[in-house]
C-alpha cells in the first residue's frame, strides 16, 4: 500500500512539473512575458529596468528554473489590480468556490442517487421515463443559460430568492462562510443548483445504469433467496456495488465542478476564484491567471489521488491487488 502511494505521488509530481512547463511556455513563448509580468501602465525606462530585474534577458531554461524556484516557495507574482500576492488572493477566494462546489456535489448525490434508483427500479414507469428525459436536458443545456433562467424565474418574477452575491457570512476558522447563515444559504440555493445540474444528470444516469446492471445478477437473487428484505437488498447488496463507479465519477467531477464554477460565479456574481479569474482575464491581470492555473492543476492532481485512494478502500478486489 505505501509503495503504491509513493508511486502515485511520484507520478503526480511529474504531472505537476509537466504542467509548470506548459504554463511557463504558454506565458513566455506564446504570450509576451513582458506584458504578463510588468504592469501595462509602466513606461519604456521602467520596462527596461524591470526586464533586467526580472531576469527576462537570461536564457529560457534559466528563467524556467527561477519561475519554478519561486513557485515552489509559493511566490507566483503580485496582482496588478489588487497589488497583493496572486497566490494569497486566490487562496482568499477559494473558500467561496469550495463551499459552492461542495454543496453542488452534495446536491448531486442527494438528488441524483434517489432519482437514479427510482429510474433503475422502474424503468418502464412514467416517472422513470420522465427522469431520463429530464437528464438529457441536464447534460445539454448551457449552464449559464439555466442560471439566467433561474434568476429570471425565482429572483425577478417570483422574488423568492436573492440573485447575486454571497449574502451574510459567518466566520469560522478565520474564513467567512455563507452556509452558516440563513441569508447566506438563501444566496447559495440558486448557484449551487445551477452548478449541480449537469452532475445530477450524470449521477442519476450512472445510478440507473448500475441498478439495471446489478439487479439481474445471481447474487441479488441469492440475497433475496436468503430471506433479506428489499431495503437490505437494495441499500447493501445493490448500492455497495454501484457505489464504486459513482464515487469515482463524483470525485473526478469535483474538478470540473470547480472549473464550471467560473460560469456559475459569473452569472450569480459569486465572489469565488472563478469570478476572480474571469475578471483577471478581462483586465489582463496575468500573475493571477498563472497562479489560478497552477492552483487548478494542483487541485486536479490532488483530487485524482484522493479518488484513487477511495477506490481502493471501496473495492476489495482492487485493494488486494495493490497489496500484493
Amino acid at each position: 500500500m505505501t509503495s503504491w502511494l509513493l508511486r502515485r505521488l511520484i507520478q503526480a509530481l511529474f504531472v505537476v512539473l509537466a504542467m509548470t512547463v506548459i504554463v511557463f511556455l504558454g506565458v513566455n513563448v506564446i504570450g509576451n512575458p513582458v506584458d504578463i509580468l510588468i504592469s501595462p501602465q509602466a513606461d519604456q525606462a521602467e520596462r527596461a529596468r524591470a526586464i533586467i530585474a526580472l531576469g527576462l534577458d537570461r536564457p529560457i531554461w534559466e528563467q524556467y528554473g527561477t519561475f519554478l524556484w519561486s513557485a515552489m516557495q509559493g511566490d507566483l507574482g503580485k496582482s496588478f489590480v489588487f497589488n497583493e500576492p496572486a497566490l494569497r488572493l486566490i487562496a482568499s477566494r477559494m473558500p467561496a468556490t469550495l463551499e459552492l462546489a461542495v454543496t453542488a456535489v452534495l446536491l448531486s448525490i442527494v438528488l441524483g442517487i434517489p432519482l437514479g434508483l427510482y429510474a433503475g427500479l422502474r424503468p418502464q414507469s412514467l416517472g422513470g421515463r420522465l427522469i431520463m428525459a429530464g437528464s438529457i436536458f441536464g447534460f445539454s443545456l448551457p449552464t449559464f443559460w439555466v442560471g439566467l433562467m433561474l434568476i429570471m424565474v425565482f429572483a425577478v418574477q417570483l422574488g423568492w430568492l436573492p440573485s447575486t452575491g454571497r449574502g451574510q457570512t459567518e466566520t469560522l476558522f478565520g474564513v467567512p462562510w455563507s452556509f452558516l447563515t440563513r441569508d447566506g444559504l438563501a444566496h447559495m440555493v440558486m448557484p449551487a443548483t445551477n452548478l449541480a445540474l449537469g452532475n445530477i444528470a450524470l449521477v442519476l444516469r450512472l445510478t440507473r445504469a448500475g441498478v439495471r446492471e446489478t439487479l439481474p445478477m445471481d447474487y441479488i437473487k441469492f440475497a433475496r433467496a436468503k430471506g433479506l428484505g428489499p431495503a437490505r437488498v437494495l441499500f447493501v447488496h445493490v448500492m455497495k456495488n454501484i457505489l464504486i463507479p459513482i464515487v469515482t465519477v463524483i470525485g473526478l467531477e469535483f474538478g470540473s465542478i470547480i472549473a464550471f464554477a467560473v460560469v456559475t460565479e459569473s452569472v450569480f456574481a459569486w465572489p469565488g476564484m472563478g469570478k476572480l479569474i474571469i475578471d483577471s482575464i478581462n483586465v489582463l491581470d496575468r500573475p493571477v491567471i498563472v497562479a489560478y492555473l497552477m492552483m487548478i492543476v494542483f487541485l486536479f492532481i490532488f483530487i485524482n489521488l484522493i479518488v484513487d485512494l477511495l477506490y481502493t478502500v471501496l473495492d476489495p478486489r482492487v485493494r488486494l491487488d495493490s497489496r500484493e
Partner: protein
Amino acid sequence: MKEETPFTRFRKEFAESPLAVLGLVVVLIIAALALLAPLITPQNPYDLAQLDIMDGRLAPGAKSADGLTFWLGTDDQGRDMLSGIIYGLRISLGVGIGSAVVAGIIGSSLGLAAAYFGGRLETAIMRLVDLQLSFPAILVALMILAVLGKGVLNVMLAITLVEWARYARTARGAALVERRREYIEAAECLALPRWRLLFRHLLPNCMPPLIVIGTIQIARAITLEATLSFLGLGVPITEPSLGLLIANGYQYMLSGKYWISFYPGIALLTTIVAINLVGDQLRDVLNPRLKR
C-alpha cells in the same frame, strides 16, 4: 420491388423516431435562417444608420417610429432582436460548425495514424488525448484564451484544441477494429501508398462513429462558444453570437426586460436540443451493435 440501398435503409431507420425527424427539420430551418440572414431579416442589426436609439429596449410587439414591428422587442441600442438573433445564429453556427469540423479533421487524422502506425506515435498521441480529456473543456478553453486573447479566430482555435481529443479517441477505436479486416490486408498487399490506404480505405469505414460524435461535438462547440462569449472571453462585440446577445441582455433582465436575454437563449437552446436529437438518433441508427 425497388432495391434497398444502404442510404434508403439509413433514411428509413432514421425516420423511425418522429422526434429526431423534427430535430432534423429544425436544424435545417435554423441553418437556412443563418445562411439567408441578410435576405430575410427586417433590419441589418449592424448597420448603425438603421438603428434609432429612441427604439431602445422596446417590448416584443412594439412598433418603431417608422412603422417597423419589433416582434421580439429591441435591445439597448434599439436593435431589432429578431434580426439580431438571426445574425447571431450565423456567428454561433459558423464558429460551432467550423471549429467542430477542423477539430474533426485533425483529431480523426491523428486517431487513424495512431491506430494504423501504433508504437511510439500511438503512445504519444493517446497520452496527449488522455491529458487533454482529464481537464474540463471550459478550463482548457479559458487557458488558451487567457494566453491568446479574444477574437473569433482565437475562440475557434480554443474550441478546436478542446475538441480534437474526442475525435482522436473515437477514430482510433474504430480504426483498431477495421484495421484487422481483410480489405485492409488486401489493400496492403496491393502496396498502395500509405496515405491512400489511410484516407481512402480505412477512413470511410470509420466514418459512422465519427459522424455521430461530430454531431454531438457541433452542439458542444456551440455551447462552449456561447459560454465563452457570455463570459466576455469569446467573440468581439462587433460580431455578436447568441452567447454575447444573452450577456448583453443580462443586466436588463433584473429590471424585468427579459426579452433581450430570453429570446437569444431560446434560439440557442432550440439549436442545441435539435442537434442533440439528431445526434441521438444517428447513434442508434449507425451503431452496429444495435443492428438487427
